[in-house]
């Protein structure tokens, strides 16, 4: 029959997926899979409306996994070997299914992990040694500041403007964002400490102002271009940047993935990723199951990861190792391998975030106010109360049901 897959791309994964689907269709001539390449915005804003009215594609690549879990199809009855699925993808099922449920909703097409990158060439030119494993945020920022001073770069470092990006560091500082009732807790001292520190670094010109100050609200702004242009020696983003950095930096300088610097409580990044899920409202779940089975095959997952330079979420693939990422760029290759290693340092609090319904409310609430403090509109002490109340209001409003 007819299967429609709604898909967004950050890079070439759309082409790779089309390629894989073509192969699938050759093997299964009775199933016609149409790949609807859409903007990420469609996935975020339009798909939910469609889902709410019981419409939508048969399969979709989504990132807002938990919130919409009720719409995912349980693949248990439609895949050939549910056990294969549970073994290889089971770790992330909780990210994408309602609490206390044991369905098989789909699988992660890629895992991501936040982490830092350093411009090795700049460090070398400045004659500053890169802090080693286990170095703290302060140490990294200090080292980067020395590079900044020596090389006259615009800033010492940058973190993407995103609540998701600063949550890892906050957890490393020891922050606990989840209250006992499972709802967001008011900011604790560790959280406040990191925020205060970050704002101070911004005021001092270490954290490149432009990234955080150039927007209001929850708008996501990456600092990648500043890093690419060697305006900052240190950049905190995530594994998904590797392909982007590789194409745009090219041979201009050497760069390395440094993982997440440490705080008092640990050195964690925040995991995440995108999942391919079946949609409950599909007319032919059997075909959906077949497509999903094909795409979840170990060799296919491996090929997909290697070609797209994504971290695979398939346990078998990860454990087997030996992924041959298809890039000429030694920096990229090294970074990918490094990130696979960093997955070991994820703290349990960080690992819990993707499955937490209110994570997004917390992320959004923080970004908005922190950038206000950075822009000088509010004192940093004053933003904490606002962050707490913003989040509380959002949660209260969201929890209203009929």
């Amino acid at each position, binding site marked *: 029959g007819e299967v429609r897959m709604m898909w967004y791309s950050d890079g070439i994964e759309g082409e790779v997926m089309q390629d894989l689907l073509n192969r699938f269709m050759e093997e299964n001539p009775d199933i016609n899979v149409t790949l609807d390449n859409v903007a990420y915005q469609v996935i*975020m804003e339009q798909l*939910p409306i469609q889902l*709410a009215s019981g419409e939508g594609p048969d399969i979709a690549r989504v990132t807002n996994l938990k919130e919409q879990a009720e719409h995912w199809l349980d693949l248990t009855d439609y895949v050939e070997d549910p056990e294969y699925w549970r073994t290889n993808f089971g770790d992330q099922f909780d990210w994408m299914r309602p609490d206390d449920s044991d369905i098989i909703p789909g699988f992660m097409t890629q895992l991501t992990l936040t982490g830092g990158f350093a411009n090795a060439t700049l460090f070398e030119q400045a004659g500053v040694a890169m802090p080693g494993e286990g170095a703290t945020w302060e140490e990294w920022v200090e080292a980067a500041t020395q590079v900044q001073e020596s090389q006259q770069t615009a800033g010492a470092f940058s973190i993407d403007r995103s609540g998701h990006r600063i949550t890892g560091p906050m957890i490393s500082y020891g922050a606990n964002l989840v209250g006992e009732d499972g709802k967001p807790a008011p900011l604790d001292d560790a959280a406040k400490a990191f925020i205060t520190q970050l704002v101070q670094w911004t005021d001092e010109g270490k954290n490149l102002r432009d990234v955080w100050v150039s927007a*209001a*609200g929850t708008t996501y702004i990456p600092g990648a271009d500043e890093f690419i242009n060697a305006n900052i020696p240190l950049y905190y983003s995530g594994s998904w940047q590797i392909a982007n950095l590789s194409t745009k930096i090219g041979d201009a300088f050497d760069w390395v993935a440094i993982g997440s610097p440490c705080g008092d409580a640990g050195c964690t990044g925040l995991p995440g990723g995108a999942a391919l899920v079946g949609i409950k409202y599909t007319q032919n779940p059997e075909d959906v199951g077949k497509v999903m089975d094909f795409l979840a095959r170990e060799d296919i997952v491996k090929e997909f990861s290697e070609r797209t330079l994504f971290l695979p979420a398939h346990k078998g693939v990860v454990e087997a190792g030996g992924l041959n990422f298809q890039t000429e760029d030694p920096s990229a290759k090294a970074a990918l391998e490094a990130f696979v290693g960093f997955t070991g340092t994820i703290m349990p609090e960080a690992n819990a975030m993707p499955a937490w319904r209110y994570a997004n409310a917390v992320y959004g609430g923080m970004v908005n106010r922190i950038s206000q403090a950075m822009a000088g509109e509010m004192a940093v002490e004053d933003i904490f109360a606002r962050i707490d109340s913003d989040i509380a209001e959002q949660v209260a409003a*969201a929890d209203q*049901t009929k």
Partner: protein
Amino acid sequence: MRPATSAGAVVTAPLRWLARATDVPLSAWQRLTGQRGMIALFLLPNMAIFGIFVLVPLVINLLYSTTGGTEFFLSDRPQVGADHYARLLDCGNYLDPNSCRDDMFWIAVSNTARFVFFQVAVMTLAALITALILNRALPGKGFWRAVFFFPVLLSPVVVGLIWKWILQRQGLANLFMVELGLEPVNWLTDRLWAFVAAVGVSVWAHMGFYTLILLAGLQAIPRDLYEAAEMDGTRPFRVFWRITLPLLMPNLLVVIVLSLIRAVQIFDEAYVLTGGGPGTSTMFMTQYIYEVGFANLLRNPGLAAAASILMACVLIVLTLLQLYLSRRSGAK
């Protein structure tokens, strides 16, 4: 004959045939129902589409604003009465957003008010000057029109992007500043400059639209009035103030009303350009509504609807005021 008229003939020949064909049933209708029937007929298609696709959603939106939760469909949403309005209007002092429960809303309101004022003023003036100039017989008329109209062809996102690239810290603008021996300017991260940039870019993007409206209006002013004025020995500025401007008034009114309404709705290009920053200094109403209702992962469509209804109320009052004033000042 001017080329335009012959081009016109190509278009009008089939149209005339169509007129004849359509006239049979329609004049029957006229005989049957008289002028009133015809008025109804002329209004019907537009009003029907308008009713279904504008009015009905508006009413739903109003209902929306009295419901809570994150669900999309009205039937799934719990009633919360005027809660959203209460939240938005809960302020210690309406002039100080910080004293409000929802300070972002009031920041957006005051930013929007300032933006509208400057944008409408600057743009109307620029469009008027440009239209006057384009109305002169210039060599290469079409080319100049295209030049000033060109940005209108661009989608707002592209507009925002182009200018973001131009104005960012190491963009083209600062490149020129340095070339000219001036200090680079923080166009997008300085509160004042970012606001100026938002106004300027929006003027840049939409001016051609209004210029065209004014140009069409200028073309409709009978020539012999200018000739009479010239015989009256009128100086150019006076002709402008006393002849051109009053006769252009209906069109100017269109321009002011439309630009005002569109300015209040400013979103895409400013959003891409400044994202509302630095801080919140260019965050406008629609961005607020958009974020609350869509962008935030925990959306609150009810609150967004309530904010949009408040915004529409303000706009209606503004427009009515404007229509009233212009009617009183004697323009037709």
